[in-house]
């Protein structure tokens, strides 16, 4: 699949898809989207990159091992539940704060941390699966 057109288009495609995935993730709370969808989009992006440039290139670009990303995501999601314990509410209860930021109010919450955790788990796991299958060195 290492055709010229594909190899030329792939980096832009990957970059666009990654940006789109983050966008989908962050708007997920109010519009369609969210961690699962965003994560899958990002995983597809890496899969495409891997098909175009080979698995080592993706691994280099990712810097971390995909499973490590996945593990960090799970950790973040679980940790997002912990602050609720401090406030004496059940585990994983969403907590919100809206600090003013350059005159703009931004909603920050543990729920967003949780959703980012979901995103990272999905990205990490599926990228890892896809890369493992693309990697033909073992055959």
């Amino acid at each position, binding site marked *: 699949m290492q055709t010229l057109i594909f190899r030329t288009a792939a980096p832009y495609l990957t970059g666009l898809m990654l940006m789109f995935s983050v966008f989908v993730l962050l708007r*997920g709370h*109010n519009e369609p989207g*969210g961690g699962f*969808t965003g994560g899958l989009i990002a995983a597809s992006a890496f899969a495409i990159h891997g098909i175009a440039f080979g698995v080592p290139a993706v691994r280099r670009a990712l810097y971390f091992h995909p499973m490590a990303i*996945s593990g960090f*995501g799970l950790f973040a*999601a679980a940790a997002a539940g912990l602050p609720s314990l401090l406030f004496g509410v059940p585990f994983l209860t*969403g907590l919100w704060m809206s600090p003013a930021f350059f005159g703009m109010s931004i909603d920050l919450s543990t729920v967003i941390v*949780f959703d980012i955790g979901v995103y990272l788990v999905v990205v990490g796991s599926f990228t*890892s699966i896809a890369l493992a299958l693309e990697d033909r060195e073992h055959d």
Partner: protein
Amino acid sequence: MLPFAGALLAPALVRVMKHNAGWLLAAIPLVVFLHLAGMLDAVSKGSSISGGFDWAPSLGLRFSWFLDGLSLTFALLISGIGTLIVIYAGGYLKGHPHQGRFFSFILLFMGAMLGLVVSDSFLMLFVYWELTSITSFLLIGFDHGREASRRAALQALLVTGIGGLSLLAGLLVIAQATGMSELSSLLGSVDALRNSPLYLAALLLVLGGAFTKSAQFPFHFWLPNAMEAPTPVSAYLHSATMVKAGVYLLMRLNPVMGDTAAWETILPVFGGATLAIGTLLAVRQTDLKLMLAYTTVSSLGLLVMLTGLGSDKAIEAAALYLIAHSMFKGALFMVAGLIDHEAGTRDITCLRGLRKAMPITFVAAMLAALSMGGLPLFSGFLAKEQIYYALGSPEGWQAVLLVIAVCGNALMFAIGFAVALRPFLGDALRTPKAAHEGPISLWLGPAVLGALGLAAAVAAPITHRFLSSPAASAVAGSPIEVTISTIPHIGVPLLLSGLTVALGIAAYVRLDSLRGATAGVLQAIGWGPDRGFDQVLRGLLRLATGLTRIIHNGRLDIYMTVTFVAVAAALLLPMVLFGELPSMPDVPALRFYEWGVLAIAVIGVAAVVKARSRLTAIVSLGIQGFAVALLYMLFGAPDLSFTQFMVETLSVVILALVMTRLRLAPTDRRPHAQKLLDMAIAAACGTAFALLLLKVTQLPFDDRLSQFFNTYAKTIAHGRNVVNVIIVDFRGLDTLGEIAVVMVTGLAILALIRIRSKKADVHAPVRKEA
């Protein structure tokens, strides 16, 4: 309970202190013993000590304990003999690599046994009962390198375990019949159970438990086999304590279950039979431990018989014999182990003239044998006198019991002295090891027990006041005063005693020819329950193998067929049988592009099924997936739609990656009949699901939960996308679990792919087999 804590400590202690740990660990049972002894005074005055706490009050389950004369007598025997046994084991297993484990097991057992005798609630009784079975399994199989040992352990576990289940059933029946689940309350209303229609069922089930535990005929076979255990175990479990658990149960239940025709027939008959068979089998043995084991069987038979007779005298006799037997049999077992340990053999025909080499052992053995033989001045004598008082004026068939008792006691007399005299008298024979006196830890136990057998009888009034009278009263359910003293009285019992001794001496003198005779008889019979046990087990294994072959035949398609036939039947049958079929729906008004998407989905599905090449299969799988995604989009589920799109894309990519490496086509090469059958099953399942769904959607819809989410998504969770709010906020814990699953899947797949590259040789044999 203290012994359990000790069991945890034991291995560490042994590592530090080697075999001397025995001395320190013996402090544990000693403390228990002294603590219990402190209660003697109160209990002997007729009061009982109880306590407990609720465990599951809604189920009426409680942990509770109570101590009366009977419990206390048992508990004192267990902890007292336990102390000596732990010391003994310290010397006996000196240098054994697993000594710590051994101490651990034996203390565990001790805790279980103590728990058993002080339990009040049925629940606790049963739990401890099974615990003694399990710990005895561990102890018998302690020497797990030998097959005989493993077999004996398994046999003991199975026999007593099945008995335990029988007991559980019996206890449940009792609880059902009387509405009481505690022994103390049961003892408080004595007639409740006897008058119940469930009495006989309860009795038989409880007896099943008691008889297996106490090795009554025909379940006696496991006890001699259990002699594979190290001698301290035999001395402790299989003479003094565990096997008495069954007797304890019977004595405990005597006030509520006894005094009926069934009780007074079954118990004496089985007890008598066990007594007779046990002594006969004992005569033929030449191994010291086996001889003692079979006499233990017969002693247990005697105890069961006495409990079953139920008269005050019989109960007094049972209480006395119980105490005496624990002491002399424990001592004799320890002597046997000591001889084995020092001389290297337990075969009575190879042992002679040890009295010079092992004088203390000889004295201890003599003390125990005198008590076992029932000679005056010893506690065995009190017991035997009392037995003959109880049996002295037989009516009808009970005369048979008397004859059995006399003969049995005579043979036990002979065997007791055979064990205690034969190895010590005469000219010394060469033994595998040069015999010499054992260390103090080894002879302390038998010496103390032997001396106690003497002291208990000499100080009979004290013994009676503190031990035998309270115990007998508890068994009888009404106060009894045990009065018998060690000075012989002229009368029928003394005459019978004399007869027993005379017969016993005769048997002792002619022991060798008797052994030959019984061996011949047994050879002629050939088959026994022991052999039967093997046959049953083997049959069970065959049956299990056969069943496994039928049910678990290794063909996935058959498992699947069975599963889906069951699914279709489970869905369709109730609908048809109860007339719950949905009504015919109207043709809905869909827009043309909606029909179009539906048609694409159908075509995709059909194409997947019919696909002849792998590319077609992948593409058509993608088509149906995208069609489903479109459906979600059209019917108000954009989130689902996105996700489905991405999943389908990735699926197609991954499938394409893998399928190109699999050299196979997804075509179906099966006979037509098989295909038709599958189609029928699939069609039935499909119809069933469709009908179910139709029916469900025609029923009124309860949307409270959905309304809840719609109402609060914005106000509480600050999100306008209700679906996402549900996922990350309202049901966040589910999602957390789910992403954990996703991650584990990723790990598993990585492992699956990598496993070969590192360990290529591991799979080589697998490939060869296939």
